[in-house]
C-alpha cells in the first residue's frame, strides 16, 4: 500500500509541516539562550500571518508581505521586551499578555480579508532533481520558506557556537550579573535576542498565511506557537536538536493522517494525540540521559542593574 509516489508526497508534506515550527522555535531558542522566556510566540506568529497576508494582498508581492510579517513580529516583540526586560516585569505574565494582544490585533487587522485568497508562494522546480523518486519533492520541490528555515538554522547554530556575539549572548543568558560586570549591555543584548525571536515568529506566520494555507482566517496558527515553545525545551536549547524535534513532530502529525486514510483501525483520537505523546516521551528520555535539562541559568530571571 506504500509506493514510491505516496512516500515522496509524505516526505514533502512532513518538510512543509515542520518548517513553521522550526522557524518559530529557532527564534525563541535565541531569545531563551539570552535569558528571556517569551511566551508571546503564538501572538507574534498570528500577527505576522495577518500583517503578512494583508500586505501581500494589498501590494501583490509575497516578498513585501513576508518582510512586513517579520517587521510586525519584531514590533510586537518590542512590546514584550519593553515590559519584561526594561521594566523587569514578570516574564510569564508579559509573554501571555503578548499572545493575547497579538491574537486580538491580528483578528482586527485580518477582519477585512476574511474570504479572500492569494496565490501561495511557488515551489522550486529543478528538472531532473525534483522528479527524483521519494526524496525529490521533499528536498528539491519546496518553497523559499523551507530553504530559508534551513539557512536560518545553520546561521543560528554557527553564530551561537562559533562567534563572539554568540558567546556574549550565551554569557548573558547563563549569568547576567557576571556579564554585566564585564561591561556587556545585558538588557540591550536581550532586547536584540527577543527581537530576533519576534522576527522568526513573524516569518513563521508568513509561511502559514502566504504559503501553507494562503488565506487569512482568525486563529489560523491554532496553537503552533505553543508547540514551538515546547520544542525549545525538547531540544534542550540546542539548534540541531530543534531540527530533529520539529521534523519528528511534523512527521508524526502527517503520518497519523495517512494511517487513518489507510484505515489501520487505530482510534483517531489516539492518533491525533501522538505528536504530543512523542514530545513528552522524548522529553522523558532526554532528562533521563542528562543531569540537567540544559536550560540557561538566568532564564526567566529579570535583570535589574545596580546602577
Amino acid at each position, binding site marked *: 500500500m506504500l509506493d514510491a509516489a505516496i512516500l515522496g508526497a509524505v516526505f514533502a508534506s512532513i518538510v512543509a509541516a515542520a518548517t513553521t515550527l522550526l522557524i518559530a522555535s529557532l527564534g525563541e531558542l535565541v531569545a531563551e539562550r539570552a535569558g528571556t522566556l517569551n511566551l508571546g510566540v503564538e501572538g507574534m506568529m498570528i500577527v505576522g500571518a495577518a500583517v503578512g497576508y494583508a500586505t501581500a494582498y494589498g501590494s501583490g508581492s509575497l516578498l513585501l508581505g513576508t518582510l512586513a510579517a517579520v517587521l510586525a513580529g519584531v514590533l510586537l516583540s518590542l512590546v514584550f521586551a519593553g515590559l519584561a526586560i526594561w521594566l523587569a516585569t514578570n516574564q510569564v505574565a508579559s509573554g501571555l499578555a503578548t499572545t493575547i494582544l497579538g491574537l486580538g490585533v491580528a483578528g482586527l487587522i485580518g477582519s477585512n480579508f*476574511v474570504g479572500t485568497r492569494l496565490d501561495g508562494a511557488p515551489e522550486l522546480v529543478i528538472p531532473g532533481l525534483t522528479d527524483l523518486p521519494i526524496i525529490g519533492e521533499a528536498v528539491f520541490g519546496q518553497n523559499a520558506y523551507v530553504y530559508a528555515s534551513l539557512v536560518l538554522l545553520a546561521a543560528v547554530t554557527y553564530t551561537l557556537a562559533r562567534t563572539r556575539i554568540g558567546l556574549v549572548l550565551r554569557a548573558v543568558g547563563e549569568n547576567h550579573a557576571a556579564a554585566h560586570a564585564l561591561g556587556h549591555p545585558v538588557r540591550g543584548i536581550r532586547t536584540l535576542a527577543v527581537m530576533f525571536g519576534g522576527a522568526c515568529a513573524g516569518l513563521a506566520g508568513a509561511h502559514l498565511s502566504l504559503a501553507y*494555507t494562503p488565506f487569512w482566517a482568525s*486563529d*489560523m496558527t*491554532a496553537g503552533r506557537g505553543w508547540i514551538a515553545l515546547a520544542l525549545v525545551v525538547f531540544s534542550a536549547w540546542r539548534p540541531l536538536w530543534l531540527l530533529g524535534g520539529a521534523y519528528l513532530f511534523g512527521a508524526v502529525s502527517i503520518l497519523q493522517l495517512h494511517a487513518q*486514510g489507510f484505515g489501520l483501525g487505530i482510534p483517531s483520537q489516539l492518533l491525533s494525540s501522538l505528536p504530543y505523546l512523542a514530545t513528552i516521551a522524548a522529553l522523558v528520555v532526554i532528562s533521563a540521559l542528562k543531569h540537567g535539562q540544559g536550560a540557561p541559568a538566568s532564564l526567566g530571571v529579570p535583570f535589574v542593574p545596580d546602577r
Partner: protein
Amino acid sequence: MRKILSMAVAIASGLALAGAAAPAKAAEKLKAAWVYVGPVGDFGWSYQHDQGRLAVEKKFGDKVETTFVENVSEGPDAERVIEQLARAGNKIIFTTSFGFMEPTLKVAKRHPNVYFEHATGFKRAKNVSTYNAKFHEGRYVLGQIAAKMSKTGTVGYIASFPIPEVISGINSLMLGAQSVNPDMKIKIVWVNSWFDPAKEADAAKALIDQGADVISQHTDSPAAMQAAESRGAKAFGQASDMIKFGPNAQLTAIVDDWAPYYIERVQAALDGTWTSTDTWGGMKDGEVVMAPYTNMPDDVKKMAEATQAAITSGALHPFKGPILNQKGEVVVKEGEVLADKDILSMNWYVKGIDDTVPGK
C-alpha cells in the same frame, strides 16, 4: 447637620432611583447574544452564523441589540460565557455548537426568563429550543456528484469529531455515491478539530496522495478546498461558498443560511410568542442552500439539480430503505425512511464504508 445629612440621603436615593430606571428604559431594546465555537473569521461555520446575526441586526435595526462571543471552547468555559451573557441582560441567547448542549441547559435552569437556542443538539427544556439544518440532504447530492466525477472511484472525507451530525453526513454522502456507483470507496480522516487550517490542508493532501480525487469536508476553513485546487483535485465547499478558494476545484458547496431562522426567533422573542421548539429545517425551508454547480459536465449538473429538486419536494429522502449497515444487516426496510431521531443519534456506518466509527 441632621438636615444636611437627610438631604444627602434624599439626593443619593434619588440618584439610585434614576440609576435603576435607566436600565429599565434600555431593556425595551431586546438584547440578543450569539456564542460561537470558532472565530467569526473562519469563513465557515461560525462565519455563517454571524451572517445570520448581522441579518437580524439589519432586519430589526435599533429594536435589537446583538452581541457575540467567538472562539468559545466546548466544555466548562462555555458555561461561564453563557452565564455571563445571561446575567448581562440578554433576552435570547443562541449557542451554536454541539458541545454547548450541557452548558446551555445548566445556565438555562438558573435563568428561567431567558430564551436559549441551541444549534445541533437534541436536549430541550422549557426555555431551551434546539435547531439544526438537514445538511445530510446536501451531502446526498455531493455523493452523487462525487461518484460521477471521481476517476479513481474514491472520495476523501475530512471529518471533525465522531458525533451523529458528522456520521450521518458521511453515510448520506456514501448512499448518494452508491446510488450512482455501487462500488464507490471512501477514505475518512478525522482531524479532531473543527478549525485548524494547516491540519485540514494536510488531511486533504494526505487523502489526495492516497488516491482520493474528490474531497469533502466537515471542518470549518477553506484550507482543504485550496489544497485540492493546488493539486488538481475536485472538492466540495463547507458552510460557505468557497469558489474563490477553488475556482477550478469546487463542484458545489453546502451553504448554511441561518438568517430566516434567526429572524423568526428574534421576532417571536419581541412579540412574546416564543416557545420551546425543535426545528430541523432542510432544503425545503431554505436553510440548506447549494452553491452553483461548477466544474462539471452538463449531465452531472442536470442530475444534481434533479436530485436537489426531488429532496426539496420531499420525493426523495436520503435515508430511504433499503439501507444496510456494515455487517450487512437491514436497518431501514424497503419503502421506509429512517426516522429523524435515528438520524440525530446515528453512530454506525452504512455498508460499503471500509472503516470503523472511532471509539466503537
